[in-house]
């Protein structure tokens, strides 16, 4: 006869106190978006743009623009780069409010991240309805991890609800496949106002690898109004927590103009 309650109580707390406390965020050694250092680029070298599977890196007359909203963190560019202009990094906290903040275009200066818009009432209590619009299940795995004892999303006052009727935030993963288009819109319609939308994962932000083919749209652009973008393939649970806190104005946005502010 197993005494689970006793076991649970005697196991102590497995929850990290991050981000409020000093505990680790649990992402030791995790690689994030490649960091771009344009000074190290060779003249006219376009190797990274050619290998990028989602065309996140584009060349415009001798300058490169990196759209982190399309990055699937495959590290092909960092391996192909001969000079070290593209280097692997641990930058995974890429939640942003405006889509343009994910695009690194030379000449653009980092702008001050704007503040939030009237979500004071939801500061400590947010209900999220997740819709899988055709993801690969990686994002779902990380979202399901949010309620494990390590991350324990409930301590931050954020809950997943079973029905869009109770939801404040619609969290969408996947590039929006053709059959999921109608149900996704129905979920949005079923939410009472005020309501917001968050795109989690590169597929939802920009379509990812399958975006734009016969079966998929290119993420939520043009389908729903998005209030927060979080690229990543998949974004780890700490990144998702960070993005949710950015959404609630409980954490500062770290990325603007494609640059990570340290």
């Amino acid at each position, binding site marked *: 006869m197993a005494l689970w309650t006793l076991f649970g109580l005697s196991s102590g707390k497995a929850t990290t106190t991050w981000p409020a406390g000093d505990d680790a965020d649990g992402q030791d050694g995790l690689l994030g978006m490649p960091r771009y250092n344009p000074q190290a680029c060779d003249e006219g070298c376009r190797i990274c743009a050619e290998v990028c599977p989602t065309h996140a890196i584009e060349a415009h007359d001798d300058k490169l623009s990196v759209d982190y909203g399309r990055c699937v963190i495959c590290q092909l560019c960092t391996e192909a780069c001969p000079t070290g202009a593209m280097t692997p990094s641990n930058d995974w906290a890429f939640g942003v409010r405006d889509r343009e903040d994910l695009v690194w275009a030379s000449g653009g200066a980092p702008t001050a991240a704007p503040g939030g818009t009237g979500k004071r009432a939801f500061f400590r209590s947010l209900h999220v309805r997740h*819709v899988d619009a055709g993801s690969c299940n990686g994002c779902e795995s990380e979202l399901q991890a949010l309620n494990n004892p390590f991350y324990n999303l409930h301590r931050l006052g954020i809950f997943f609800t079973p*029905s*869009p*009727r109770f939801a404040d935030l619609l969290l969408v993963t996947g590039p929006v496949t053709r059959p*999921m288009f*109608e*149900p*996704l819109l*129905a*979920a949005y*319609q*079923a939410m*009472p*106002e005020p309501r917001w939308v968050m795109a989690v994962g590169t597929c939802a932000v920009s379509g990812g690898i399958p975006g734009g083919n016969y079966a998929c749209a290119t993420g939520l652009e043009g389908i729903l109004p998005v209030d927060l973008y979080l690229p990543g393939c998949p974004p780890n649970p700490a990144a998702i927590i960070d993005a949710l806190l950015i959404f609630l104005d409980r954490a500062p946005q770290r990325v603007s103009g494609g640059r990570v502010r340290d």
Partner: protein
Amino acid sequence: MTSGMLILSFVLWVAAALIASLRRWAVLGRALLAAGALSGVIAAIVGLPNPTSTAVLPLRLAGEAVAFRLEPEALWLFGFGLAPALFACALGSPSHYGRSGWSFGAAFSLLGALGVFGLQNGAALLVAWEAMSLGGAIMILSERLDSARGSTVLFMLALLEVGAVGLILAVAILGLGTSSLDFASFVGAAAALRSTTQIGVGLLVLVGFGAKLGLLPFYEWFPGAYGSGSGASGAILSGVVLNAAFFGMSRGLFEWLPPSPEGAFPLLAIIVVVVGTVSAILTILYAFQEDDWRRLLSFSSAENASIAVAALGAAMLFRSYGLRELAGLAWTVSLLHLAGHALAKGSLFLTADGLQRATGSYAITASGAGKYWLFGIGALLGAMSLSAMPPTAGFVSEWFVFQTVFQGFHLPNLAGRLVLALAGAGLALTAAIAFATFVKVFGIGVLGRDVNRNAPISRFYSGAVGFLGLAVLLLGVGMPVWLTALDVATARHFGAAVARQMYVGPLLVPLTAKFAFISPSLLIIVMPLLALVPVTLILVSGRYRVRRSPVWYGGLSPDPAGAATTALAFSNAMRTFYSFVYRPTAVTEREADAQGYFVRKLAFEHDVAPIFGPLLFQPAVRSINAIAGKLRLLQSGHLNFYLGLIGLLLVLVLGLTLA
């Protein structure tokens, strides 16, 4: 005046029967039936609270004159039973066939019922009784709504004949003593019998009238027979015919038989209470599992009749201990119960007919009839009354039944108190199941979305159902007024005008306000006032912008009718819980490829098993068949055998005459 209206009813119904036998002018026939019913109702309204004057009919049966008189309780039950019959005859059967046959049957039933209510002669009573049964059979057979109607009607008649045999025996035993079949002499004749014989006669009366009322085991013909007919037939059978049967039983058990002597164990009363309670429980359990309007309502009629019988038994029990006022209370309660039941059941049977004309079937499925507001309100009030919801008449009578049974502590002996306590528990169970049953009927059958409805609900049906429903409400709300109609009746039977003690101003009380009280008359004023609160809130909140979005199913919008609760789904939990009673069967058949992987079609059949059919009737039928098989020897076809038999008979006759 009363007698005149009654004679008018008689004449109109006879005329309707004649016209029906000519197989023409069906509408005229129905109009005559309805007019006769109307005059009957007027007679009741005018005549109460006094009985009619005795009239001697111009015919002699078995050498005796036949008297005709309607007692006040007879007028009460007759009038209330005729109200639904009025509408049923006016609207007629929805079947396209046998219109004249139906009118003929209806006329027969109504005439028979009139006779059962009023004739004061045993032989005449039996004739009227048989005419009533036959009329019902003719109605159902003419309608041709079900191809199996022959066997169901035959089953009905068979069980009714068992009852008739009981009645014949009872009448014969009572008439033997005084050599007269007039009811006036039955009282003295019964008093002269031994107590065991009295109990035996009481049981014969119970069986005789119980076969029609639906006491166990006789309720098993109800679903088949009602289910082969229409709602109009059901309204007549459950209204005036049921009331007539109850009146006969009440007269038999209360007037013909004396109360048990002082100190004797009131066996008959206890048997009546127990039979009534158990029948009520069984019939409402089966009612809940039905998915056909007529069958469900038929079981519910049996249940309500059983409750009235249980109240009657309680009255007998109180009377045998000299508690005359409590006996009067219980007896009046049974009359109130059947009055409300007739109106409510009539409204629901006509609802079923109205829905059948619109959807084409009597199945309890979504029909979206709720938007016809008069129809819906009438059906709602009928359903509320049958599930004992305030402020309807059903609530009043059910409440009174419980208050009567709760006062069993006045009884001096343990057996009586125990029986009444257990009866109270049983009646509480039936009330709960009845509530679930009528939620199912109304919720699915009337309120469901209009998937199956091809045609609108006819105005006439809306009017009839609405009228009867509102009548039920009026009966409940105005009960202090209507109770005065039973003053004379209760005075005659119990020595005191008990009916007058059942209300104090607008309050209804079980003889004393200190015990308990309710007041539908006040409720009907208070409830709308209370409703002002939510109405105000709705009006005030109108300033918020409303955005309507479709029902959330998971992203797609399936046909909502497919996902709706079905009749079976609603009753399924009870079916599993009470499976020791129901012994349900469920059979799934799949049509697939050879290995069973690619399923093309799925068929599902479900059923509940009756109790007395396999337990009682089928063994009886088998044994009769066995005996008949043995007796077939008589049909040997051998001349010598017949000659031998004749010889034997001759010897017997010689022996008898010489001895």
